[in-house]
């Protein structure tokens, strides 16, 4: 029996295919309008959950290297009785959002009480706009008064109803001194032919464009079409010249450590954590970027327990230890910029070397050289599309 397509078989298959296309249309029309309310606790219940599910970026928690534990989380459990299930599954905003938007758009919980997203990417604002974040229970967060002034009224959440900063950081340039002379400016990074194919640029639009706009002499806090195009074309040229090896998220760290990269556009704290004394990080000559990772409670998360945790973290003593670590107890700190006033005092008592590190407790002078990207530009569809096309090759 030969299996050539008979006309009847062809028609049969077309019929099957046809139903397959109209069926979803029917389902979509009758099934999916309106979101289902997720089964989360309301903010009026003041009971602590047994477990707090916390998703965070990597290298973002104090760690006891010998025991592979997080001291501050253990202390939290001792004090409040809630175990923190801490997962480091956020590698970049885009891919994490991609993972959670499926359930969230169906009104389902993602089994997390706290997640952390960056403010110089569109996803933080998107979560809030879509109503996928729960309101904080501020009655459980008296320590919110310790939030540093500059963080109190961000334009994506003016009254801090849904978010609280976790850590801030700066974007600059890291280089490996065994492979290259110091790379201290964006023009060096993008145009020095000796670095061809040995550098990377961040795939985060906010970070990359801020640095390049500053190098062009433009203001990244107020993006115009012209300043956008100038910066965009400069990066594009570097791509076409094969100067840029890759666009990366936080995955620049392994190639940098391996020696595949001579320099990388990178985040301040990561370099401190890599612990390789040949790798140096600097704010670029023309200025760098400042960003803040924010905690928020996704829909369906336990508001009260999450709020209690946030309060715990905003205690200056706790924050000081988390930030600086304690070499006497083998604890490595986070080494980013804490949002809690008064943390430096405590950090000095635990780890003076770190407490005096200008990357972690930057001086006002350093803070003047770093800038926050224009929030409106983050949601400009045209810019987003252009940027995506650039980084997808």
């Amino acid at each position, binding site marked *: 029996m030969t*299996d050539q397509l008979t006309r009847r*078989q062809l028609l049969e298959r077309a019929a099957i295919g046809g139903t397959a296309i109209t069926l979803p249309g029917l389902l979509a029309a009758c099934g999916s309008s309106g979101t289902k309310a997720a089964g989360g606790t309301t903010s009026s219940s003041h009971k602590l959950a047994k477990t707090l599910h916390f998703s965070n970026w990597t290298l973002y928690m104090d760690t006891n290297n010998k025991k592979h534990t997080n001291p501050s989380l253990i202390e939290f459990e001792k004090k409040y009785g809630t175990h923190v299930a*801490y997962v480091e599954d956020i590698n970049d905003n885009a891919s994490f959002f991609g993972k959670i938007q*499926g359930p969230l758009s169906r009104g389902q919980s*993602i089994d997390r009480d706290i997640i952390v997203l960056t403010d110089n990417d569109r996803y933080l604002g998107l979560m809030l706009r879509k109503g996928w974040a729960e309101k904080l229970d501020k009655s459980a967060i008296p320590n919110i008064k310790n939030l540093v002034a500059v963080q109190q009224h961000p334009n994506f959440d003016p009254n801090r109803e849904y978010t609280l900063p976790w850590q801030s950081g700066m974007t600059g340039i890291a280089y490996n001194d065994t492979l290259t002379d110091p790379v201290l400016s964006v023009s060096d990074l993008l145009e020095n032919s000796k670095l061809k194919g040995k550098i990377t640029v961040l795939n985060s639009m906010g970070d990359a464009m801020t640095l390049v706009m500053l190098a062009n002499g433009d203001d990244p806090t107020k993006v115009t079409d012209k300043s956008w195009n100038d910066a965009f074309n400069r990066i594009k040229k570097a791509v076409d010249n094969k100067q840029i090896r890759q666009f990366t998220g936080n995955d620049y760290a392994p190639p940098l*450590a391996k020696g595949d990269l001579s320099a990388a556009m990178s985040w301040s704290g990561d370099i401190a954590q890599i612990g390789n004394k040949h790798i140096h990080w600097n704010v670029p000559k023309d200025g760098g970027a400042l960003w803040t990772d924010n905690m928020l409670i996704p829909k369906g998360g336990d508001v009260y327990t999450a709020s209690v945790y946030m309060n715990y973290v905003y205690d200056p003593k706790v924050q000081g230890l988390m930030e600086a670590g304690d070499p006497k107890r083998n604890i490595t700190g986070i080494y980013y910029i804490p949002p809690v006033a008064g943390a430096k005092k405590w950090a000095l008592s635990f780890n003076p070397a770190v407490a005096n590190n200008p990357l972690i407790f930057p001086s006002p002078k350093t803070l003047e050289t770093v800038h926050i990207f224009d929030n409106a530009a983050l949601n400009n569809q045209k810019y987003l599309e252009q940027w995506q096309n650039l980084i997808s090759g």
Partner: protein
Amino acid sequence: MSSAVAVETRHERRGFLAAAWAFVKHHILTLYSILFFAYLLIPIAVVIVFSFNHPSGKFNYVWQGFTWDNWRYWNGVPGIESAIILSLEIALIASVVATGLGTLIALALVRYGFRGRATTNILIFLPLSTPEIVLGASLLTLFLNLSFVTFGFQTILIAHIMFCISFAVVTVKARLVGFDRHLEEAAMDLGANEWTTFTKVTLPLIAPAVLAALLLCFAISIDDFVVTYFNSGSSVTFPLFVWGAARIGAPPQVNVIGTAIFVIALTAMLANVLVQMRRQKAAA
């Protein structure tokens, strides 16, 4: 007289060269094959060796010293234990279900003629010829539109069963096709009814194929990345864990688990092969 001698020596020389050439030609395939196997196994060797590495920093790229620590504390990396357990659970359930469904389909396809046979064949063949990314993306689209589905274990399991069925069908079918129906007919001639024939004759004879399908599905499921990546929500299987860990420098424990899976699978297959070889020798 001398010319005859000269001709003879020339023949000898040609004979020697020809023999040498024949030797090389004969063994060049062997040489090539050995190089081929070496090439295949180099990355594996790297993975195994680096599972014993003692990196001073976070990055496992340069050999710095031998240690058993990574093996002793294989679950020292947060998340790795739950990831491998999830992978094993899913692989077990998915392979059993897929093999079950697939065996039934294979039986129907080989034993019976019926309308829609060609269409069924195409239906089985299509998932195999669809790139994983399309499979993953389309399932994601389906799940996004079904509000009662929870992303996580459920969705991953469904996805794995889906793409394993075709593999199971193909594996069992291959064996069924070469099946000698006379054995069944003989059993029935001897008075066995259909059910007894099935359980006492057919099933044992296709058991190797069913087992092979089970193992194949298990291996495919435990290794799957792309389809799982699209449909896992916030659950993490072992391949997903590796993907995440690799971005910031995969710890040696990843190599440890990879090696462990490799060794277990290899041992199982090796045992199977040696038993087969033993049987062949006995039959010869």
